[in-house]
């Protein structure tokens, strides 16, 4: 169990800056997700926490102890790699055992721990097989068993589920969360999948281009994104982002007029698909759109439409709702649910929505 | 039984037979090595089983330490490398032309240094002694002396197509006439020319034909070129005949890539009627179980001119730095191996005669009754015995180009020039002029 502090962490590869000035506090026992597109620096950060990559500058502290210069195995971390990497030429049992190489525990303890981990992850039947003989899900369980058997202070997972199919991913997600809660180990989980991030993490750290965009609970990240990047990256279907002008108490873009107060100028308006209503094409103040497709998700449906500038705009509609492709409609955002971002992508907080 | 042991026993038995009563004990002591060091003997690859048995016999009888191995590949070039590097080398095979070169480079200890020199000199046939003497020194002892370019005939095919002794050629012009006549009668491949791919292949083929036709290529004393471009001269006629033969298409190009083994085996396959060959290979061609024309290979007797040129091998002593005692041992071994053994017999040369019918430069070997018997065993017809001896005794030696330091440089040039003459339909006069120019260039290079 440990709390982790990253202080002004920086990593460069030659002229390329992978991580820049990262300050991050991870609480003891927390399940932290690091989310971002590929190349955003999340895996590099994880590797630095693990000790696999040397930080170019800055410090890493575990429970206020500076571990920046410690080799990986002295940090007492466990790591599960992309595609659940295991030693391909040795048995599952020996794979798990290697995690305990540098511990001084007794043989009996060792056996007990391995047995417990195997039991916990239900991998007893194939302890003597080679990783190549296992399915993806089984390998993932083995990799997890290998990680927990060490009883590490920090658990690091690098996109462990990305190579698995959707159904398996779903069940393993909850398994992992459940396990983490039972063990209470501080966990850092790297993913580019926002659904994984939303469903698993206590908190999510969203990264982009080597910088931390926002950190917060899934609820904060979802409902109150602090940048236009975070707003666009999270949520499925994604948030509608419309560029326009804010002046005279209205956000305007073509025919669209949303009554919002705020500092004038060019802004981006963000509104989630569930926060818009579909109207007639001619409804005043609505965004005129052309129906592109309707996706039926069962509990609800998503209307996808093109606006006059060729942007895709999405709206949640009732499951029985129908429209012809090519039909002209209007989209009307709920002013109270709209977010505004400035041209740098930062959230504009001083807004007041007026009743329409 | 192991062959080495077998050879040893056979050798010892033969020795016992030959030695008889005339055993001289003093000589026995003379030929025993004293230094205790190893004597290195290297040679090209020919009947290594016989050589090994010979060496084993010496080591056994004389308590010697002779190390024998073969050097394969481009023998003169590799040998020259070895000598240049002062490699461990005490006695080695060499052709007289190479030996001249090695002598001029200072790598050869001439046979004049041997205690038995006077006796050796008296034993040698004069034409061979002359061929092997360079700048007044005898370059080495006789390994073999043979005629390369003896015209052999496959009588089986020859007679099958209705030819008789009356058709046998008396000179090279008639050889070519006969070839075309045979071709006209339907023999696909009447002739196998001396054009194979070894360093003694096509170039020697040219030399022997020109010499037979009365040419010299270069002067025997001054080594100045004597090649003429006269259309009736031996040089022009040779190349003209070659050109015609090549363009007739009856010579397969594979001939140019044969090694000597391929050349011999091709004739032994019975496919060809006539070919200039090494005189002693008549034994190979007539050996049952090893040749398709066994018992039907004869030779063309000497007509207007001799057939072929002297092809000989010498046992040459090296001049490398070594202890005096070892040098003495080397001399003893060379004497024993290249001349007379402890019993006063020229045993090795006689043994080669028995084994492979290798001719020797020593009179007493060539004129011994065993030799006469051996030769008669290898020939097809009794009259061939006289034909062989006559050819052998009259074989010329191209001293102008072979008893000179640049011999081994001229030879590859000749090989390349002649094959491109045939392949690229070269001009005869230009080709001959190029040869003259090359000889002049080489003379200039060595200040001759």
């Amino acid at each position, binding site marked *: 169990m440990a709390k982790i502090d990253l202080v002004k962490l920086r990593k460069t590869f030659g002229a390329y800056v992978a991580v820049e000035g990262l300050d991050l506090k991870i609480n003891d026992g927390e399940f932290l997700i690091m989310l971002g597109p590929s190349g955003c620096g999340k895996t590099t950060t994880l590797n630095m926490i*693990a000790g696999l990559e040397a930080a170019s500058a800055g410090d890493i502290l575990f429970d206020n102890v500076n571990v920046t210069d410690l080799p990986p195995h002295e940090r007492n971390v466990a790591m599960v790699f992309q595609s659940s990497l295991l030693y391909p030429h040795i048995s599952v049992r020996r794979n798990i055992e290697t995690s305990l190489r*540098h511990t001084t525990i007794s043989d009996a303890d060792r056996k007990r721990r391995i047995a417990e981990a195997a039991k916990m992850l239900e991998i007893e039947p194939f302890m003597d097989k080679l990783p190549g003989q296992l399915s993806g899900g089984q390998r993932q369980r083995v990799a997890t068993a290998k990680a927990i058997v060490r009883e590490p202070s920090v658990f690091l997972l690098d996109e462990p589920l990305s190579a698995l199919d959707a159904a398996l991913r779903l069940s393993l997600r909850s398994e992992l969360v459940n396990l983490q809660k039972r063990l209470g180990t501080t966990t850092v989980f790297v993913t580019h999948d926002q659904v994984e991030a939303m469903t698993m993490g206590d908190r999510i750290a969203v990264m982009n281009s080597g910088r931390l965009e926002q950190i917060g609970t899934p609820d904060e990240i979802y409902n109150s994104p602090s940048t236009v990047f975070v707003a666009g990256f999270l949520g499925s279907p994604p948030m509608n982002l419309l560029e326009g002008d804010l002046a005279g108490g209205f956000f305007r873009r073509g025919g669209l007029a949303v009554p919002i107060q705020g500092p004038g100028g060019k802004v981006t308006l963000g509104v989630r698909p569930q926060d818009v209503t579909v109207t007639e094409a001619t409804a005043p103040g609505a965004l005129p759109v052309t129906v592109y497709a309707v996706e039926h998700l069962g509990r609800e449906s998503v209307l996808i439409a093109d606006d006059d500038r060729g942007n895709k705009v999405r709206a949640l509609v009732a499951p029985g709702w129908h429209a012809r492709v090519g039909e002209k409609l209007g989209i009307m955002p709920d002013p109270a649910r709209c977010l505004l971002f400035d041209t740098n992508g930062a959230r504009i907080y001083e807004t007041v929505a007026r009743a329409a | 039984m192991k062959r080495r042991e077998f050879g040893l026993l056979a050798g010892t038995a033969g020795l016992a037979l030959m030695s008889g009563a005339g055993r001289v004990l003093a000589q026995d002591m003379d030929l025993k090595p004293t230094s205790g060091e190893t004597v290195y003997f290297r040679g090209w690859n020919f009947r*290594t089983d016989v*050589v090994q048995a010979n060496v084993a016999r010496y080591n056994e009888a004389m308590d010697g330490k002779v190390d024998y191995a073969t050097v*394969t*590949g481009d023998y003169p070039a590799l040998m020259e490398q070895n000598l240049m590097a002062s490699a461990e080398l005490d006695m080695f095979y060499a052709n007289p032309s190479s030996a001249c070169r090695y002598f001029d480079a200072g790598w050869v200890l001439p046979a004049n240094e041997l205690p038995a020199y006077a006796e050796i000199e008296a034993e040698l046939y004069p034409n061979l002694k002359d061929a092997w003497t360079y700048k007044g020194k005898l370059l080495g002892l006789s390994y073999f002396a043979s005629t390369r370019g003896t015209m052999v005939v496959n009588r089986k095919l020859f007679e099958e197509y209705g030819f008789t002794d009356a058709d046998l050629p008396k000179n090279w012009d008639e050889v070519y006439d006969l070839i075309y006549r045979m071709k006209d009668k339907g023999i696909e491949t009447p002739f196998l020319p001396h054009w194979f791919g070894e360093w003694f292949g096509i170039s020697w083929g040219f030399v022997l034909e020109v010499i037979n036709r009365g040419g010299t290529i270069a002067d025997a004393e001054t080594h100045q070129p004597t090649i003429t471009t006269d259309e009736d001269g031996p040089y022009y006629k040779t190349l003209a005949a070659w050109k015609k033969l090549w363009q007739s298409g009856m010579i397969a190009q594979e001939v140019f890539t044969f090694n*000597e083994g*391929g050349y011999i085996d091709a004739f032994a396959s019975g496919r060809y009627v006539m070919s200039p060959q090494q005189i002693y290979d008549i034994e190979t061609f007539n050996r049952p179980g090893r040749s398709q024309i066994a018992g039907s290979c004869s030779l063309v007797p000497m007509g207007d001119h001799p057939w072929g040129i002297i092809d000989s091998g010498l046992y040459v002593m090296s001049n490398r730095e070594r202890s005096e005692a070892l040098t003495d041992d080397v001399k003893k071994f060379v004497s024993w191996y290249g001349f007379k053994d402890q019993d006063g017999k020229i045993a090795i040369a006689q043994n080669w005669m028995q084994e492979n019918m290798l001719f020797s430069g020593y009179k007493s070997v060539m004129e011994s009754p065993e030799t006469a018997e051996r030769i008669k065993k290898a020939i097809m017809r009794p009259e061939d015995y006289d034909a062989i001896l006559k050819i052998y005794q009259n074989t010329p030696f191209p001293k102008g180009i072979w008893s000179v330091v640049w011999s081994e440089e001229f030879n590859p040039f000749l090989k390349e020039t002649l094959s491109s003459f045939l392949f690229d339909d070269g001009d005869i006069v230009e080709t001959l002029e190029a040869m003259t120019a090359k000889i002049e260039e080489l003379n200039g290079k060595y200040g001759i």
Partner: protein
Amino acid sequence: MAKRSIFLYLAIAVAIVWSIFPIYWFCRMAFLTPNEIRLFPQPFMPQVFEFGTFYNIFGYDYEYAAGYVSGASGQSNQIIRGVLNGLFISSIVTVITLLIVVPLAYVFARMEFRHKQKLLFAVLLAVALPPVSTLIPFYSMYVQLGLNGTRFGLIVVTLTITVPFVAWMLIGYFRNLPPIERLARIDGYSRTSCLLTLILPLAKSGIAVAAVIAFLFSWNEYTYALVLVNGTSANTLPTAISGFLGQYPEPGNLAASVIVTIIPPALFAYFLQRHVTEMSLVDPVR
């Protein structure tokens, strides 16, 4: 379906004939009588299968069923010496090559460091160097050092061929191994113990192939051997064999000794063929 399999088996048959017929046509001579060897045209097959020539090349006489005796070859000493020297030299070369190349290739394949590209180019240069160009320099160097005609000298020279070639090959192979070093570092392996206890067992297929390639190169090396050890006590099989080519040809013995040279590599090939399919130079497509 039947048509396809007929076509397939036909293709297999053609491929097998293509691969072994040149070997057959030559090695057949080991079983032909000396007289049959001189037949024109040559026979397709030997009449009797007796192993006389194999006795001969190792120094024994052999009496054929037909009654004649073929004598032991005079090259037998050199053949025996060639086999022993060949096995000795090739084994040493193989071991040293692996000791040198495995860590080298590993480092080049899986680590990033400065000047890597330049050093890789140096290895490439060594691969490109034709033996015929370095023959004379080696020869004169060896004469000065007294190394010509020694097995040690031939081992050193052969290493200059095997090391760059095998390194080049193994670098590609190591690149494709899964990145277990990171896992190993988490588990507390040092770099050296990771290489020794994890990578080596994991890469055993590639290393086996590399070993066989090094052995073959050394076993079959001819050019250097011809100049450096030919005619000495350090001669190898190829130079000993070329002795059968000379003025007194013994094609039967030549063929028999060529068969002898093929046997060790062929045995390797049999054990190797299951490993070699793992030698992919590119990442598996997932």
